[in-house]
């Protein structure tokens, strides 16, 4: 309980990192994109990568945004949404003051066109997974229709959306990949090289493999914002290089790994500029239930009892993680704060194994990537722990891309990985729904009628409180069934310079900042 109190305190402390100072107009924000050596695409529909959304959130806009201070989704391009009695038809009031960077005002037609573009099945846009919830979207994807029947323009700034399930559309239309784009600019071709959006900054320059520069959009719909004149997003995939650049005051923000987290916390000059948040990623050792020992719940529970998870988080992950209790992350609306994680109890693990018919343990192959936070180093730590209860682990090292393919094919006995688990609790738990195929994230092959019923009931419930209660029960069932070894929820850590203000502790991805709220004071060395 104490741990949750600390977490809550940290989240409250940093949510928004708002300060009492008056924001200064002007200056340059210098952020870093730390996940790869290049951006995938500046066309937000064409990329599912977190790296690209760092720029996407500045240049483009979506119907909803995540409000980090409030811990919820809020309307952005949508001003308000009202649902019909059956919960399937939503009427959107859209902003009438949002201008694309070419000077044209956004209307309902742009939303319809953007979503229709996303559903073009020949493109394979990742955002189709969200838009597919709109009635008739699948027909467009399959090439059986040209228009999404569930989208209807009422007037320029009113849109009706009919969905196929009772869902909160906010969860579906806040991802950067569902950005609203101007048709005329996209159809000119070469949009990825000249992106035009509705965001607070307009695109100026992209040096592939190095940086993106954007400038203040004067007609941005939030009065007085953005504060800064310029935004530079510098691609810096190497942690050591980021460290030098940050210490040399050449960048304003940097993502920290476990080793740097320790170093920065211990450095008096740097420890004041650390922003941390429980990100919506669950790290877990996924046990394939098609591999005989793991089809038995007792074996899976034994694995959870056999591993000293707290020790690994403390020593190896350097406390840059929160202990996972079940599948839903800390910041999920259906997270059960009272839930206790599996206790480290090797004797109980042995007993459970014996009851399951494995008194002498068994052997399994564990597929892993080299990732320092949830890959090979963690596997090396759990090998002796599992050996103590008789379970022998044969590690198999592969690249992350290969790991995904193996998981989707079910071509593993077990693998360790990181899973996006937020913020939509229902969608997150669907990874354990029996009808969800392995290709769509049921990597364990989980099949439990009681769980399915809870999810079905939740899906039919429009009342959010009741729905969350059902999802909490489903999450508790996952805890009990232990389809995986629950390892941790990622603690994302952003180092920031003392002259930058207004950063948000965004649990969906800490690098995704709403840059219109960020400002730099006169101490910034950037011109």
């Amino acid at each position: 309980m104490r741990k949750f109190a600390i977490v809550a305190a940290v989240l409250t402390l940093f949510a928004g990192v708002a300060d009492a100072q008056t924001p200064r107009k002007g200056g340059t924000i210098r952020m870093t994109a730390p996940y790869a050596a290049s951006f995938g695409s500046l066309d937000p529909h064409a990329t599912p990568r977190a790296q690209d959304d760092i720029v996407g959130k500045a240049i483009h806009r979506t119907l909803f945004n995540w409000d980090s201070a409030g811990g919820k989704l809020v309307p952005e391009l949508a001003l308000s949404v009202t649902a019909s009695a059956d919960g399937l038809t939503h009427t959107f009031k859209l902003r009438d003051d949002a201008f694309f960077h070419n000077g044209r005002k956004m209307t309902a037609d742009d939303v319809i066109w953007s979503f229709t573009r996303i559903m073009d099945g020949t493109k394979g846009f990742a955002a189709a997974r969200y838009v597919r919830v709109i009635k008739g979207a699948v027909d467009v994807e399959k090439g059986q229709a040209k228009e999404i029947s569930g989208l209807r323009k009422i007037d320029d700034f009113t849109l009706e959306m009919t969905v196929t399930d009772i869902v909160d559309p906010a969860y579906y239309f806040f991802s950067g990949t569902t950005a609203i784009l101007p048709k005329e600019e996209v159809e000119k071709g070469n949009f990825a090289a000249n992106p035009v959006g509705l965001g607070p900054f307009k695109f100026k320059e992209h040096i592939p493999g190095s940086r993106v520069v954007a400038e203040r959009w004067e007609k941005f719909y939030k009065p007085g914002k953005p504060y800064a004149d310029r935004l530079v997003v510098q691609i810096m995939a190497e942690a050591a290089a980021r460290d030098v650049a940050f210490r040399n005051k050449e960048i304003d923000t940097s993502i920290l790994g476990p080793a740097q987290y320790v170093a920065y916390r211990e450095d008096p000059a740097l420890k004041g500029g650390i922003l941390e948040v429980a990100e919506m990623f669950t790290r877990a050792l996924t046990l394939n239930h098609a591999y005989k020992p793991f089809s038995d719940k007792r074996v899976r529970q034994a694995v959870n009892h056999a591993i000293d998870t707290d020790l690994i988080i403390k020593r190896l992950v350097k406390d840059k993680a929160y202990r996972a209790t079940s599948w839903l992350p800390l910041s999920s609306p259906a997270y059960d704060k009272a839930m206790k994680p599996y206790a480290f109890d090797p004797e109980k693990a042995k007993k459970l194994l014996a009851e399951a018919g494995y008194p002498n343990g068994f052997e399994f192959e564990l597929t892993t990537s080299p990732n320092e936070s949830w890959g090979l180093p963690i596997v090396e730590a759990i090998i002796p722990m599992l050996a103590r209860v008789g379970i022998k682990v044969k590690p198999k090292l592969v690249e992350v891309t290969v790991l995904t393919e193996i998981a989707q094919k079910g071509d593993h006995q077990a693998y360790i990985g990181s899973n996006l688990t937020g913020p939509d609790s229902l969608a997150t738990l669907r990874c354990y729904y029996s009808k969800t195929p392995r290709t769509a994230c049921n990597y364990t092959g989980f099949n439990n009628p009681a769980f399915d019923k809870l999810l079905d009931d939740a899906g039919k419930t429009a009342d959010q409180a009741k729905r969350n209660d059902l999802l909490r029960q489903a999450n508790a069932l996952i805890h009990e069934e232990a389809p995986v070894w629950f390892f941790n929820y990622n603690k994302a850590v952003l180092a920031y310079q003392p002259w930058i203000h207004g950063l948000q502790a965004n649990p969906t991805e800490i690098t995704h900042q709403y840059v219109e709220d960020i400002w730099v004071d006169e101490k910034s060395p950037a011109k």
Partner: protein
Amino acid sequence: MLAVLVRRLLNVVPTLVAVVALVFLLFSVLPGSFISGMNEDGRGMVDPAVMERMRKEMGLDDPLVERFVKYVGRTVVGDFGNSFRTREPVTKLIGARLWPSLKLVLASMLFAIVVGVPLGFVAALKPGSALDTASMVVAISGLSLPKFWLGLMLMYLFALQLKLLPSFGYGEGGLAHLTLPALALGVSPMALLARTTRAAVLDVLNADFVRTARSKGMSEARVVEWHVMRNALVLVLTTIGLQFGSLMGQAVVVEKLFSWPGLGSLLVDSVFQRDIPAVQGCILLIVVFFLAINTLVDLAYVAIDPRIRYG
């Protein structure tokens, strides 16, 4: 000279075909695909039916031979296909990265030649001297240092401690941003050139014709100018050519470390995401660059030493 060039170019063709085939085969047998990578972290979650269709469109399910024939057919006419990742033509992606890469490689090579060759030359003229020992220590250290570590140390020293240069990035493409990555990349060929030059010069200095020249009373300066430089240059030139050609490939680590927008960082990202057309395009270009440089070196041989003939 023209005949040499034609013969050399004809030799290049089978090498290119072999490289094209090798690159194609390597990426065909490698596990993982661009499609599976789209679901990394559960982020993409592309519909299985769409994934299936994309696999078909990208030709990932076609028989190996069919894919190879298509690939060769396209490559011959200079079409490297579209990148899976950005959906843009690979030639366009490469075009954006080519000049920064060339600039980095040229600057590194310039540093390597300007420092390495004189260093080796001076060391060879006074073998066993303190200068010789010192220059060889520099050379061996330069060869042994990993580029990543060296790059970090350069950043630490020149950016963080001395505040002389920016630690990373492209800036406006000027000298300030180019210096550190060029040094990080150029130290190794510099060291190799110093050692090669020293060995080549020593070799020539001990040759019979040099002894003859000296015995005829030719001054030491004339001996060095007329005999040593010209003869040693063939070996030095070979080393320069080989290093120059391979630097484009070696630049990967340095470009990534310094956020330099060259082919190396494009190649790394493309490999990790299994963006096969982009990988094939980058590797092919690097190989062509290597072969082109070697051809130029061969031609230079003929110019320097007319006794050399290629048959």
